[in-house]
């Protein structure tokens, strides 16, 4: 499904520059399979929205080619691409009713009146807005408007739908409901979705694969669990989820494991990801929930001394901030289960982790 020949959407060495000097998108290569839900995730200015706009046809690639079903689309204007799109600010036509908004793409395609009506009511039904056909966008709430925008992007049955931070303007609860609905619809209809967001939770919960953008490049392209558990570089490790990082140098390396001597003192075991030899500087990265306090590890495992600075009760988890190897922003999350010790500031503990959970990344 994801090999180069069978790709549904393909970016082939695409570059984009607005001013002819700085590249906003640098050498982008990406294949998206049919029916896949792919999210472009990244901080603002990372080039993710530019990529989406190039795919929609509102920006032209400075170099390289974008292909849709194997056909180059660089020379096709946006209105002939047949790609659905949901905009961040909904972009509903304010002078038309909801039904007229949905009829717009159908009229362009010269769909008959009766067929238009059945398609519109089906699309409105999909987003649970069946009763709102006669309203104007201004009479709807933000969440309702976004549902209509979604219905309008789906009503002409495109195979590819682009979404540009569609939930950015909504409150948290509504966002979660719509996240679920969008994923469900995408899978039911079998459409391919390219979704742009800067919200990592959204990216992880919705996507089949996530492309993490930074500085005009894809830093990592992987499934959500891979991205979270096996980040390939320190940017991805920091950007996705909460993460503890410690600076050090590789002091021993042996195939699947290495030992890192931390700058703040102490040694720990880690998995070498993109460090190659003894002496390489590295950032080791460990998730807060994988750290064990007073660990029962196998013989030869390294542990570190830590001092509790802060203990926060968060209901389902405890969040403890520690001073470790000279840094005082090391966070440990422990589940609130029966008998779990509650630490207090000033307590001295030993911490450790399974070498597999700790990754030695480039600086």
């Amino acid at each position, binding site marked *: 499904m994801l090999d180069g020949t069978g790709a549904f959407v393909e970016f082939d060495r695409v570059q984009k520059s607005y001013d002819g000097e700085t590249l906003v998108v640098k050498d982008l290569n990406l294949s998206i399979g049919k029916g896949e839900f792919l999210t472009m995730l990244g901080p603002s200015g990372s080039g993710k929205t530019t990529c989406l706009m190039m795919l929609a*046809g509102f920006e032209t690639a400075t170099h390289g080619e974008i292909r849709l079903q194997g056909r180059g689309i660089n020379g096709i204007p946006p209105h002939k691409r047949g790609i659905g799109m949901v905009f961040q600010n909904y972009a509903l036509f304010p*002078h038309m009713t909801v039904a007229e908004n949905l009829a717009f793409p159908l009229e362009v395609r010269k769909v008959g009146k009766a067929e238009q009506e059945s398609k519109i009511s089906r699309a409105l039904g999909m987003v649970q807005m069946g009763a709102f056909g006669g309203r104007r966008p201004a009479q709807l709430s933000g969440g309702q408007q976004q549902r209509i925008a979604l219905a309008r992007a789906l009503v*002409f049955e495109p195979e590819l739908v682009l979404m540009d931070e569609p939930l950015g303007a909504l409150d948290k609860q509504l966002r979660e409901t719509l996240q679920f609905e969008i994923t469900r619809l995408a899978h039911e209809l079998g459409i391919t979705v390219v979704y742009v967001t800067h919200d990592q939770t959204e990216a992880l919960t919705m996507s089949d694969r996530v492309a993490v953008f930074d500085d005009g490049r894809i830093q990592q392209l992987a499934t959500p669990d891979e991205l979270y558990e096996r980040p390939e570089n320190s940017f991805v490790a920091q950007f996705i989820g909460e993460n503890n990082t410690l600076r050090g140098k590789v002091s021993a390396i042996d195939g699947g494991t290495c030992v890192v001597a931390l700058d703040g003192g102490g040694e720990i075991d880690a998995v070498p990801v993109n460090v190659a030899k003894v002496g390489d500087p590295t950032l080791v990265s460990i998730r807060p929930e994988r750290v064990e306090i007073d660990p029962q590890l196998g013989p030869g495992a390294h542990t570190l001394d830590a001092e509790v600075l802060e203990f926060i009760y968060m209901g389902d988890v405890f969040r403890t901030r520690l001073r470790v190897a000279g840094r005082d922003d090391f966070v440990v999350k422990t589940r609130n289960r029966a008998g779990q010790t509650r630490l207090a500031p000033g307590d001295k503990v030993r911490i450790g982790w399974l070498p597999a959970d700790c990754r030695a990344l480039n600086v």
Partner: protein
Amino acid sequence: MVLPPYATLGQRIWHYTFLVICGLIFFFLIAPILTIIPLSFNAENFFTFTPGMLALDGDAYSLRHYRDFFQNPDWQQALSNSVRIAPAATLISVGLGTLAAIGLSQGHVPFRRAIMVVLISPMIVPLIISAAGMYFFYSRVGLQGSYLGVVLAHAALGTPFVIITVTATLVGFDRSLTRAAANLGAGPVRTFFKVQMPLILPGVISGGLFAFITSFDEVVVVLFVGSAGQKTLPWQMFIGLREQISPTILAVATILVAVSILLLATVEILRRRSERLRGLSPA
């Protein structure tokens, strides 16, 4: 405006003085227009209030000046000229002005400011200078003394109004709507007529109204560019004032005031309706 309970004596005095000043300014602006309305019903051939009118005597009032306007061939010729020239000039102004405003609102157009200044200049340059320039130019190309010449001259004067009002409407226009239309499959022409045009229509209409009124009460340019055959209402009023001193002018003026109020009210209603549609104000 209500005075807060903690207002000092000085603030109270200023508050009422301010109201009086506002009233005086309002009077200064509106009184000359209001006076001509009763005067136009004068039964005599004078520009003044007769004792009978001041005594509210019914016989001192009549519609004779209105009858004169509708029966006198000179006035009828002028009216028909104005009614032919103003709409034609308005149509040209609206077409050119709207296109210019849309073009100039696109970010990639070079020298936008310079082009804008040139297009707006007929509004800024003293009318007599434009008129003299047009006279010499139109004489050369054989447009002087023709309907087409007057229409083109008035169109040039009206276009800046359309550009300004349409540009103002475009500032609030959400560019993602045209992108959405393109994404849904509409070509540029359909996008313009189905999405952009309906939303900027209030600006187009009020610009068109200004252009219409400019042409309808313009006297300087038409004196230069036109000839006796293109005598418009303002021209006839100008002649009437100089040569005949007939109160028919007052009747015409009253009719024009009424028409202007009607037009402005129409535009205001349209504007509110469109704002409601765009969700800018509650239904």
